[in-house]
Structures are given as structure tokens and as C-alpha cells.
């Protein structure tokens, strides 16, 4: 009975009482400190006039372009998560294989006349190849490594995915060498133009437009087509979906296939923007895209887009805007710190991400 005294008397209605004052106090402190630091850093940065308005606008465009690539890769994570509640850690490698395929195809095409004559056609061919190869790899992965584990505790397929990630990385390294592969120049994509005061590189425009088109297409696919409906049904409840006559295996395979194709497209775009790929190219972007998916609210397609763009912007603007303003030297070295701190802060404010719904796991 003495123990009951721990509980403060009096009616507490509505909001749950503070879990533990210290913990919540600490979290509030973190939130306030973060906001204060961001404000101080940003004000001082802008006031110093170190960068011109044009340069700030450039940073915005860079952020959007980088964010678009993240968003495309994040889609794969988010789709698989939405359906299977499982993080396909090897998705970054599927992306890298797409970029690698893009290198071999564009490198081959660049030696033919087609490259000069019809650059967009060549790129389209490359796009189809990348999407196909990546989708196939994703399907194979699902078939060999994940399907047998469906229904196993969550950690198990996750570990398998880590294993698959290493396996794919070092398979590529051992087959094609560890050297950096350089994409050929694409004439039509060099140069820039100005739009509404923003200086946009052509290749960035391509990336942004392609990402928009692909994401819109995917959204329509999931929302409007029968296959998309099946995916949503499976994500709600596999058993019921099965009873309703949906082929769960095929639907899940399709999710992997579509996610893989997205990653393949992202791989090619990555290759075109950065003109480089090697066997570890998928690792860090994969982790970033995963971060983006979580940031936006994992399992949620618009969330992946929002998360990707947010992350891209934060990485591009964060060091210059906040860290330099706070007087931190070599700020860009800490770009990833900014990205991950943003993730932590967003999740402290909204534990399920920017667009994530509050899902209670126990609707008993």
C-alpha cells in the first residue's frame, strides 16, 4: 500500500501524465536548445553576407536535386516497409547496381553514333536497362533471401538484408573491380539556365522532373490500379488479403520489383548527376535514403518524397546556414551530422516522422 503514494493524487484527465519528469525535461531542453542554435546560426550566417543571395538560391536548388535522388531511393524502402514492415537494408545496393548498369550501358552507347545523334533516346535505353536490372536483382533478393523468412521475427530478415547488402557490394567489387567508374559526358545535360531567379543546372532539372514524374506515376499506380490496390490490401492485412483472393506472394514480389525499378532509375540519375559510380556508391546514399524514408514517415509514399527533399535541403543548406554561422570550422565535414541530428530532432518532435500517422500497434 505504501507504494501507491508514489502516484500523485487528484484527477488527471486527458493528456497522459509526464512519463518521467527528467526524461521529458531533457527532451524539452534538447528541443529548445536545437531551435535556439538554429536561429542563432542562421541569423549570424545571413547577417554576415558571406554568401550572396544567388548563392543561397543555388544551395536550395542543389538541395532539391539531391533530395530528389534520395526520394526515389527512399520509395523502395518505404514501399517494402509499408507492405512487409521490414527494412530492406540491401536496397541501397540495388540502387548501386542500377548506377553500375547505367555506367556499362552509357559507356557502351557512348562509343556508338547513337549517343551523339539521339542523346535522349540513348538515355531512355539506359533508363530501361537500369530499371530492368535493378528490378531483377530486387526480385531475386526477395525470392532467395526474404520470402523464406516471411513471418519470422522482424530482426531475422533485417539481418539477412544486411548480409545481402555486403554480398551484393562485394560481388560487384570482385566482378567489376573496385575502381571508380566514370560516366561519359552528356552534351545536352551540361550547362545551366535561370528560372525565376534560380540558376538550375540542366542535369538537375532532368533529375527533378524525372523524380516528379516517377513519383506521380507510382502514386497513381498504387492508388488507382488493381495491382496497387492489392499492395495496399496486403499491407493492411496479409491474411485477409489472401482470403480475398489476392496472390500475396506475387503482390509482394511486385512491390520489390517496382521498388527495385525506382532504385534503378535513381541509380541512373545519380550517375548522370555525379558521373561516377563504384561498388560502395550505394551504401551511404542507401542509408541516407533510409533516413529520408523515416524522416518523412516510413511506409508512406508522399512521406518518402517529403523526407527526401527535407534531407537534401538540410544537407545542402545546414552546414552553410547553421554551422558556419555558429563559427564551426570545416562545417561541411559535419554534413552527415546535420542530417542525422535533424532525423533525431524530427523524431523527438514527431515520433513517427513528418507525415507518419500515429499508429498504435495494439488496437486490442
Amino acid at each position: 500500500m505504501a507504494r501507491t503514494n508514489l502516484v500523485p493524487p487528484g484527477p488527471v484527465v486527458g493528456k497522459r501524465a509526464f512519463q518521467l519528469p527528467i526524461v521529458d525535461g531533457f527532451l524539452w531542453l534538447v528541443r529548445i536548445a536545437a531551435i535556439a542554435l538554429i536561429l542563432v546560426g542562421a541569423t549570424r550566417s545571413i547577417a554576415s553576407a558571406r554568401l550572396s543571395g544567388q548563392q543561397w538560391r543555388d544551395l536550395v536548388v542543389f538541395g532539391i536535386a539531391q533530395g530528389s535522388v534520395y526520394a526515389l531511393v527512399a520509395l523502395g524502402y518505404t514501399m517494402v516497409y509499408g507492405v512487409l514492415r521490414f527494412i530492406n537494408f540491401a536496397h541501397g545496393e540495388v540502387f548501386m547496381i542500377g548506377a553500375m548498369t547505367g555506367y556499362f550501358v552509357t559507356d557502351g552507347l557512348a562509343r556508338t553514333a547513337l549517343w551523339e545523334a539521339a542523346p535522349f533516346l540513348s538515355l531512355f535505353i539506359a533508363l530501361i536497362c537500369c530499371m530492368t536490372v535493378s528490378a531483377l536483382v530486387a526480385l531475386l533478393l526477395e525470392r532467395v533471401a526474404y520470402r523464406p523468412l516471411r513471418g519470422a521475427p522482424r530482426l531475422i530478415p533485417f539481418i539477412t538484408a544486411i548480409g545481402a547488402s555486403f554480398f551484393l557490394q562485394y560481388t560487384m567489387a570482385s566482378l567489376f573491380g573496385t575502381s571508380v567508374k566514370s560516366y561519359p559526358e552528356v552534351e545536352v545535360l551540361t550547362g545551366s539556365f535561370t528560372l525565376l531567379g534560380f540558376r538550375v543546372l540542366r542535369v538537375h532539372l532532368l533529375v527533378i522532373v524525372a523524380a516528379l514524374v516517377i513519383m506521380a506515376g507510382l502514386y497513381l499506380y498504387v492508388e488507382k490500379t488493381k495491382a496497387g490496390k492489392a499492395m495496399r490490401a496486403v499491407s493492411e492485412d496479409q491474411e485477409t488479403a489472401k482470403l480475398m483472393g489476392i496472390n500475396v506472394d506475387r503482390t509482394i514480389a511486385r512491390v520489390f520489383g517496382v521498388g527495385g525499378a525506382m532504385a534503378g532509375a535513381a541509380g541512373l540519375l545519380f550517375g548522370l548527376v555525379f558521373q561516377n559510380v563504384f561498388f560502395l556508391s550505394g551504401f551511404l546514399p542507401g542509408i541516407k535514403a533510409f533516413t529520408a524514408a523515416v524522416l518523412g514517415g516510413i511506409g508512406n509514399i508522399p512521406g518518402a518524397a517529403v523526407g527526401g527533399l527535407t534531407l537534401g535541403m538540410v544537407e545542402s543548406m545546414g552546414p552553410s546556414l547553421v554551422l558556419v554561422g555558429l563559427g564551426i570550422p570545416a562545417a561541411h565535414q559535419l554534413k552527415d551530422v546535420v542530417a542525422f541530428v535533424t532525423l533525431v530532432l524530427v523524431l523527438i518532435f514527431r515520433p513517427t516522422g513528418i507525415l507518419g500517422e500515429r499508429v498504435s500497434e495494439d488496437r486490442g
Partner: protein
Amino acid sequence: MGTRRYQFVACLVGALALVGAACAPEEQKAAEFTPGPLGAVTVEPGAPIKIGLIQAISGDTASLGQDQVRAVEIAIEDKGGNLLEQHPIRTQVEDDLCKAEGGTTAGQKLAADPQIVAVVGSSCSGAAVPAMEILSGKGIVMISGSNTSPRLTSDLRGKQGDAYKLGYLRTAHNDIIQGLAAANFAFQKLGAKRAATIHDGDPYTEGLANAFGSSFKELGGTISLATAISKGDTDMRPVLTEVAASKPDVVFFPIFQPEADFIVKQAKGFPLLADTKKLFGADGLLSDTFIVIGQTEGMYFSGPATPTGATYQELVAKYEKKFGEKPIQAFHAHAYDAVNMIFAAIEKSAVKESNGTVHIDRQKLIDAMHATKDYQGLTGTLTCDKFGDCADAKIDVVQNTPTEKTIDQVRGNVLFTFDPPETG
């Protein structure tokens, strides 16, 4: 019972004494040689003399170590495979992974073998720190062909580096010299007044960027921005925005591929950086895969001077014949010199018995190495200072122009050679 036992014991003692007496004179004879404080290696007649190699032979820095391992192999062949007439030279190669923990493991493995006379290595300065400590503790002399960190020896102004250990030497240049060379070139030849530096968090690049920065400032220039990226970064445009905003006349980024690829390719989009003659890299980028990138045309590189002379050309020819490709890195000649310095020092310090047994006193070997003066090596005339810097550290600055197609041609296009003033 009792007496019997005593008898037995007495017999035993007697027998042992006899055996001892028989053995003792021989041992005395062998012990004519008295080892110094660090001990000595005794090589039986005809037994091999073992040299350890601590080099990065796997991972993304594998070429750095591989290059030197090959050079050592050639050096041994050139020596005829034997040392002190009848002792074959054997090597034992251990991987340092270019990391401190790799250096420890490799160091322990070599230190465990009492027959190891000397070690050529390591590839990376980070790995050298623990390896030096282990090997120095055993009195094993270690000489590196590619460590460049000032901490391992001295700051060239008489201040001992904090990682310095007795018995460590190197034939590679000290970073401070390359920093000085690059700064001199940028300030005097290019007429740059403002310079930006970018490193990637690697101890080598960070050290070199800093050395450049302090030399540049000493010369009267301004470091407009000293910034850094992380390995694995791809989008360099934000950092280049900052670099461009600082309005540098030259950007020094002594980093590696692939990050440097991204920098040169993306720099093109910045009006202030579009002129590739503002870009200045270091030896880590002097590779075939880097110079083929269109945007590197006009770029400058600093690095250890490529040796000249017929003997060097012979080495390259042998290398190519044996391994099917041209030297893959810049430090093979340094490793070749390093191992030959060891051979010379062994020959100088070893004590030979009539039956062919050789004693190599560790302390004497170290002293002999340090005493190296005006040694004619492939990389120049080597003289060791008391902290172990032996390099004839000529630094070249080369430029990649459209006429240079291969890395050798780029290396040959020397615009500036820096010969450091004598240090005290």
C-alpha cells in the same frame, strides 16, 4: 635405502657435470659475440635473413602497399637474393590495412619472430604509430617508404614528433616539405594570394592541407577557407559554394578518388572555380583514372619528384616485366631505397664468424641506419637526420595539359621542383 638413493644422485650429478664440461667450451666459443642492449639476431650458416614488410595490401589503399612490396622483391633480386654471401633474403609480408589496428597486428606478428632483422613499412602513418612502438620495443629497425606524417619524426626544426620512436626511419618526404613546396608554388609561381584547402578527414590529407596552410600563411598569403568533406560524400556543390564565396586564387585539395572526382567535375559549374588552373591536388590523385577526367586538364599536382636516371629506368623496366604493369603508385622507388639501406646497414654492422654464422646487433644496426650519409639511392642522395628523416625530399609540381595522355607524361610535365633547404 638411503645410501642407495644418494649414490644414484651422486652419479647423476657427476654425469651431468661431465656433460656440462663437455658442452661448456663450445658455448663459450659461440658467445664471443656479446649482444648490445637491444639484443641481436643470430643467423645460422646458410639460414635466411628475414626482413618483415608491413604494407597495406588489401582494401582501398592496396595499391600503395602493393607497389612497395613489388619494389622490395625487385631489390632482393637485384641483390642476387643473398646477403653476406650465403644468406638468402626472405620477406614476410603483413597487411597494415592502412589503420592503427592493422599496424598493431602486423607489428605483433613480426615482433613475435625473433629472426626478423628489420621491417620495411608501414604504408600509412596511422598504422606506423603502433607498429613503431611494438617494433621499437623489440629493437627492430623499421624504415618506411611512404609514411609522411611529421609526428613520426620531427617538424624539421628540431622538435621531435610526438610519435617518434628509436629505430624508425623513412625514405619518404616529410609532409611539411610537400606543404612548403605546394605553398611556394602557389604563392610564388602562380602568384596566388588567397588559397582554400579541402581535406577529407584522412590523417594524410588533413596533415598535408594543414602543412600547406601554415606555409602559405608564412609566405604572406591568406587562407580564405580551410574546410573539409567526409569520405563517401558525393554532392560537393554546397561546399564548393562556400569555397567559391571565399574567392580563392587556388584551391588545394590533397585528397583521393572518388571524392576528388566529384570536386573537379562539379567545380565546373562555378564561375569562380571553372578555371581548372585554380585546382591543385597532390600525389594521391596522380593516377590514370583521375587524369583522364576532362575537368582535370590544367590542374596542378604536387608530389614526390619522380626519380630520374638510368637506374630508375631500369627499375621501372624490371617492374613492368615482372608484374605486367607500370608502377602503380609513387613510392616504389622509396621502398627500393629503404630496403637497400637496410642491406647496406646489415653489411656494415653484422659480425661474421668463420663458420658462416652471422650476428646482427640490433643497436648497431639502428646506429648504422642513422649514420647513412650521402647514400646514392634512386630517389636522390639520402642522408638521415637524428629523427629518422632520410629523404632527399624533392617535391615536383606537375600540370595536366592536353598534351599529356598518360600518368607518366603528366609526371614528366614538371613546372616546379622544390629542393628543401638543409634542415638542422
